[in-house]
């Protein structure tokens, strides 16, 4: 009688296999955490002593071996803001078109292919494109505007894809219910689709900000300067930027104290993490309000 319910050899071996694979997959996943912890750990350990009011809000001194990072910090913020002014409306509008209006034809497929390819172009190639198009052809010179436009083009696919995904996550039934009441596509988008996709759209924008703040190659030829003793007064001037500054103090300037590059890196990653945190808080707030 009992034998019928006892585990057979086959059951046991299945169970062992199951356990083995789960352990393997889990350890692969856990390994992802390791680099993050190590990077953050080293940065905080070595960079934290550098962080002070003066470090954040003073100009570099003595050939950038002393003083703060104020112009670079401000420059990165300028580039991000100008980048968002262009990338956000274009990206969100393109995503709305692709998700809500575009028929399934060769043109749409071509556009989608172009977006994927745009995302795959190496950043240094974007940099050269930016020099040719914005710096020379449009005559913006090496400037905040040219740098921000170059990064905007580079990061557009990110915004478009994230926004499109979040729009498509809104159930089709909502749209049909809305249409059947006599709402147009735009009224439907405005009343039902966008309010429910907003958290995903926000994620896309945060990703965009993080990428923009961290990019070096596309801005070093188009608008970021090695060192400037003053702040830019318009978008047509060059600026310093955190990412390039990190590269400079790490490799180009002799006799920089060891902690300084770590401090710069910590500020850079801090901006990204703070943006992420804000988006998480904002999203959970929005999710609490909207549910289906």
């Amino acid at each position: 009688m009992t034998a019928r319910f006892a585990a057979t050899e086959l059951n046991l071996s299945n169970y062992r296999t199951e356990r083995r694979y789960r352990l393997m997959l889990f350890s692969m996943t856990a390994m992802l955490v390791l680099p993050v912890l190590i990077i953050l750990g080293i940065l905080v350990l070595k960079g934290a002593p550098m962080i002070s009011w003066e470090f954040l809000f003073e100009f570099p001194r003595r050939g950038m071996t002393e003083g703060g990072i104020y112009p670079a910090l401000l420059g990165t913020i300028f580039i991000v803001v100008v980048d968002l002014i262009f990338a956000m409306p274009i990206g969100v509008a393109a995503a709305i078109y692709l998700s809500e209006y575009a028929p399934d034809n060769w043109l749409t497929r071509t556009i989608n292919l172009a977006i994927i390819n745009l995302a795959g172009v190496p950043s240094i190639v974007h940099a050269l494109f930016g020099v040719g198009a914005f710096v020379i052809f449009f005559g913006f010179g090496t400037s905040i505007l040219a740098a921000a436009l170059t990064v905007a083009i580079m990061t557009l696919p990110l915004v478009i894809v994230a926004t499109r995904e979040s729009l498509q996550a809104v159930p089709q039934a909502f749209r049909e219910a809305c249409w059947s009441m006599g709402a147009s596509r735009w009224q439907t988008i405005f009343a039902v689709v966008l309010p429910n996709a907003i958290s995903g759209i926000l994620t896309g924008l945060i990703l965009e900000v993080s990428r923009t703040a961290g990019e070096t190659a596309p801005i070093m030829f188009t608008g970021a300067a090695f060192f400037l003793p003053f702040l830019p007064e318009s978008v047509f001037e060059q600026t310093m930027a955190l990412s390039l500054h990190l590269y400079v103090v790490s490799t180009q300037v002799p006799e920089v104290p060891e902690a300084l590059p770590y401090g710069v890196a910590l500020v850079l990653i801090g901006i990204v993490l703070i943006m992420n945190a804000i988006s998480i808080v904002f999203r959970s707030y929005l999710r609490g309000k909207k549910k289906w």
Partner: protein
Amino acid sequence: MVASETRTKVLEVDNLSISYGAKTAMSGLNLDVYENEIFGIIGPANSGKTSFLRAINRMDAFDTNMKVSGSLRFMGTEVSAWRNAYALRRQIGVVFPLPVGLPMSIYDNVAFAAKLRGVKGKAAIDEVVERCLTRAALWDEVKDRLDSLGSQLSGGQQQRLTIARALSQEPTLLMLDEFSIAVDPVTTMRIEDVLKELKKEMTILLVTNLVQQAERLADRTALFLSGSLIEIGETGALFEGQTQDQRTKDYLEGRFG
């Protein structure tokens, strides 16, 4: 049917065919629906019932894959000839199989159609919301929480909410597509009572997979089978066995397959 020819025809369907790409969903449909009747449509899955409803309110405009041919007149005018498709859809209320409470407040769910129609002023919209929720037998349950999310109501409440929403369009034609699929029997009965009342003011197209529901509600019933109309008749007569087609008899008696 004694005086049917003198009654106003809300829908006149003549040789209607619907296809999605290479797949035909409905072919050669002919039928008329009269004012103030409940017209039941029964039939198994994939018989073209929902496609027919979608052709009436021109959802093919949102689905490039869907092709409609033949003649389909609503209130005497070809639906494809309505210059303003939005105005056409506003006259046709739709209730879907699974309740679709829009992710907005209960109040906004019902106020939405009124706002689309151009009703202005809080007092006027308040009136529409209360009247429609009352007629859908939901007002008493939600009147104290009109600001909470429509999508958080129970399934049966949500389905009554969608009926209230359809009523807020002040429709000429109300189309219900298997409305009771996700609704408990008690709520189903309440909704059926509501429908019997509504019949006095509008025409109702009732697609149902419950043969008994058609028997209880419909004045006339049509059987669809794999994209074609098998038979239309007075519901009472059909259920008494006066059918032209053996398949209708089999379907009504549940001997099908």
